[in-house]
């Protein structure tokens, strides 16, 4: 009967599905590659952040329009930046980097998202 045949097929599939340990693993070369790529990305992002971060005290040293001239009430550019803008920058940088890092890991490690049951596509 047709139904019986289908049940048999279902059973066969249950045997055939491999264990996650056999299916998902990382080789050293792949991990090496990811590390290289992630490291480069992280360094680029942190260079930008550190540059911004260090620019502020440098400006505070040399530029009166930065630290001494109020632009809004008593708030100078220096004040606003240190109190708010820098933190916001961190947050934005963090969000951007998280997205990049996750994507790099997704694309450079593991398999392409595929069906486990090797059906005829």
């Amino acid at each position, binding site marked *: 009967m047709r139904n019986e045949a289908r049940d048999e097929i279902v059973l066969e599939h249950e045997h055939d599905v491999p264990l996650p340990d056999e299916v998902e693993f990382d080789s050293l*070369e792949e991990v090496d590659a990811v590390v*290289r790529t992630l490291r480069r990305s992280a360094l680029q992002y942190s260079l930008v952040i550190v540059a911004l971060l260090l620019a502020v005290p440098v400006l505070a040293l040399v530029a009166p329009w930065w630290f001494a001239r109020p632009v809004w009430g008593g708030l100078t550019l220096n004040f606003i930046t240190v109190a708010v803008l820098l933190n916001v920058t961190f947050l934005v940088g963090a969000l951007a980097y998280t997205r990049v890092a996750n994507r790099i890991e997704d694309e450079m490690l593991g398999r*392409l998202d595929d069906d486990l049951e090797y059906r005829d596509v």
Partner: protein
Amino acid sequence: MILPLSVTTGIAVSMALAWFMELELASPATVLVVVLGANAGLFLGLRGRTTLAPARRALPQRRMVSLVEQTLPHMRLGLNEETALRTVQLLHDVMRLDAVAITDRERVLAFTGPGSDHHRAGDEVRSTMTRRAMESNKILVTTDARHLGCPPGSNGNCPLAGAVVAPLLCDDYPVGSLAVFQTAEGDVESSLIELTKGLAGMLSLQLELAQAHRGAQIAETAKLDALRAQINPHFLFNTLNTISMKARTDSEEARRLLIKLSDFLRYAMKYSGHAAPFGEEYFFVRTYLFLEKARFGDSLKVRYDIDPQCLSIPVPVLTIQPLIENAVKHGIAQQPGGGLIELRARVEPIGGVLRVRVVDNGVGIERERLSSLMTVNGGEISALANIYERLTRLYGGRASFEISSTPGKGTSVSLGLPVGINDL
């Protein structure tokens, strides 16, 4: 829809009027006013249907464009029952037509709208008018129910009252027809005729495009099939050998190799267009090299150096792995101590180029052989020539392909693929 609305409005207005004139509710005067109001509403509603209808059917530019976009994916696949069904449904919904049908030369492919109980897909084309439209390549109109193609014996029950039929042409040859019906009695509005003409023209154009595309596809498929046939056999045999040997000593490794092999084959078989993101090609390369490493052991060393921006850039399918395979077979395998293969990918900001380099420190290629590599010579070297040819065709000459090699020291193959080409 419009009739009940108009009648209700008529009654409401007349009741308001009655109240305003301070008539008593149950008096004959009130009843008279209400009845008059209902009649007025009915009359206006009937008129409204015909005046509004052409407005509904007017062709705003936007809707037409969206219609083209929406039907194209279906018509691209050719004229069959499924694509016809999707298309008539789209036309029916977007243009708010009463009923729509598409036929090929012999049969009705799809029908949607009132009357679908006896106008069915798969029926023979009964309407002589439709046949004549196809044969004489003319647009025909009728308000005679007998020409609508209803099966014999059901004429009286069909809700359809009129139709416009236009032929669908491919290369000026009629391959089917588009029929647009109306349920309203009376003349067919000229706007409906124009609409049908326009729609038929649009569908015909799409069918022609599909034809041309298929032709090109067939050619490309043939080439890719040839390429794929070149990729697999020896590699497959060797890998299966390796796996069967490992199965004795390290069964976990053997199972992993089998999974990787199946990943490899699945990617190679997957044909989904001309281009894939570089990340997927990289996946193919690392799967391949994992398998080769099992065979060569420590004598094959592998290094990847990939810029994060490269991963989503589209590159032609199956262009990177053959380069790697070449490096393995002709560079490293020939060298007694083995060697290192490196895949580097960078995006060059100036010029917007994705530069992919395959570098190995194997035996190298003699100068004389280098020049003959680019010609189709037979043997596996032509894999490189094939890639070169595909790059030229796909990028129109804007891509670059360089090989440099020093015998005894190594080889370097470098591809320069422009970024931002939309339609590979």
